[in-house]
């Protein structure tokens, strides 16, 4: 079964969507979309370094993403520039450095389009193993830091005052983001990873009456988008990343339509019994 490239792509994609859902919710709640962009642009620098040093691409991208996150944390403490200016600086210089480095390495024959927009043909069995092992690790860690991370999302000061150590949770969250971005490159490509984080989460918002519920719905929406997107990518010979993002967008638009409103009323009507809110504790 795994010999079929399409099955491999679907499996890998489902793994990415599963993790991108809950993480994407935090990206939306914390208004970190630009941070996601920065990390994914920096991924290209990671790819270039991987070729240069002849190491595993996923590993190199992960390392570069973590370094960029730490650089951001450090620069924010110094605070001479606003956060978004810092992100822009890091994001585009990493992207430019990556492109320049790749251009210098004339001996490397690589498909830049596949890197930027995802390439379902490139998904190997090892990739699937890496994505699912990494994905499950990310979910376990996220579940462990969920409460402090969520409390810090609502109010960092409140979380700190009541002894939740938000700094630790924030640092872990950045590392999780770096992991997911490294995992997702082959499926959605460097330029579109943020979309996989944001669009399913935004779709889920309409139907969710609690944060945990929204995370689950975001995973489901992302998985549906993966299947729909990859199917159409195969049928119309379009790059996999954009096809998945278009499918996610279609789901979002359906959710925002009156039809989505009906579904939302149904979903909330069922969960709005008095005990619903307490189920997370």
């Amino acid at each position, binding site marked *: 079964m795994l010999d079929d490239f399409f099955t491999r792509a679907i499996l890998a994609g489902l793994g990415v969507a599963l993790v991108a859902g809950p993480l994407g919710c935090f990206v939306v709640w914390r208004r970190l979309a630009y941070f996601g962009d920065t990390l994914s642009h920096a991924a290209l620098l990671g790819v270039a370094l991987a070729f240069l040093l002849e190491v595993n691409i996923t590993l190199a991208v992960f390392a570069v993403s973590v370094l960029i996150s730490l650089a951001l944390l450090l620069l924010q403490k110094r605070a001479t520039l606003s956060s978004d200016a810092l992100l822009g600086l890091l994001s585009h210089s990493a992207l430019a450095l990556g492109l320049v480095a790749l251009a210098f390495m004339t001996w490397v024959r690589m498909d830049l389009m596949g890197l930027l927009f995802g390439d379902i043909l490139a998904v190997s069995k090892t990739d699937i193993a890496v994505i699912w092992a990494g994905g499950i690790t990310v979910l376990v860690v996220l579940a462990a830091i969920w409460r402090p991370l969520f*409390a810090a999302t609502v109010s960092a000061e409140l*979380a*700190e005052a009541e002894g939740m150590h938000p700094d630790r949770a924030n640092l872990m969250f950045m590392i999780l983001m770096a992991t997911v971005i490294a995992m997702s490159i082959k499926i959605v490509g460097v330029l579109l990873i943020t979309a996989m984080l944001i669009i399913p989460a*935004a779709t889920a*918002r309409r139907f969710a009456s609690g944060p945990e519920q929204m995370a689950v719905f975001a995973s489901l929406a992302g998985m549906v988008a993966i299947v729909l997107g990859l199917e159409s990518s195969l049928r119309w010979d379009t790059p996999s990343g954009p096809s998945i993002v278009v499918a996610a967008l279609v789901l979002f638009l359906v959710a925002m339509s009156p039809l989505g409103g009906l579904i939302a009323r149904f979903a909330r009507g069922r969960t*709005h019994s008095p005990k619903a*809110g307490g189920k997370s504790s």
Partner: protein
Amino acid sequence: MQQPDPPLISLERAGAERGGRWLVRGVDLTIRKGEIVTLIGPNGSGKSTTAKIALGVIKPDEGSAHRKRGLRVGYVPQKLSVDWTLPLTVARFMHLTGGVSSAAAEEALSATGISHLLASEVRNLSGGEFQRAMLARAIARKPDLLVLDEPVQGVDYSGEIALYKLIKTIRDDIGCGVLLISHDLHVVMAATDRVICLNGHVCCQGTPGAVASSDEYRRMFGDRVDAALAVYEHNHDHTHLPDGTVRHADGSVTANCHPGDGHHDHDHPDDGHDHGHPHSPGSGSGPKAAEGNRDAG
């Protein structure tokens, strides 16, 4: 108030600065079990900053801040905005930082009078309802120390009286210490043990006078005052005007009181101010304020 057990929180000459400007300096503050301390002062006088130093949210840039080991805190911040993308019901909000049983949550919600809002989304609450939800969340934790930053802002007058009574009841029931920041310059909770007036430094401190003894406030509030509120008479040489400026004894008006503004010390060596000068080590307040302090104890 002279109890043998260690204070819940103690600040010693604590101060914090941002971008070269001192938000607050030289604050001495201790809160013990069962004690209610109220901070008053105009906007920008460092009340919230002082509370955050006490909580450990802001690290003091000078002086020190100590918290009792394992201190359980319930905090109502001055501002908290919940993004509309966040689906958060009151019920889920009650469990935000953990360790609250559903029974305790429901009890706290009915004590603050909003148990009917359990399933409502937090972002749909009115200002007053949200304040009650935040207070309920803080007290449901059964904390050792409640830190309330303007807990009754946006709450109507009778609600304000009720919430002050509730805070006193909670203090009596679970014996927690309370650090309360008042949104009013002169009216404080009657159960307050100590009032500390801040304006970039500790101006003075003392016990509140009973509202009943103040004709002015009886005229303003009538008999509904009901012993929940009290007046704090400012007994220092300068007056904090409502707009946050300061009128000094020599009649001049400045934006703030701070060392070297030319209005302190040279005329009034004993005016109850401490400006961090080396000749007054360790005393956060001058003779008058110390007197008030002793009255409180």
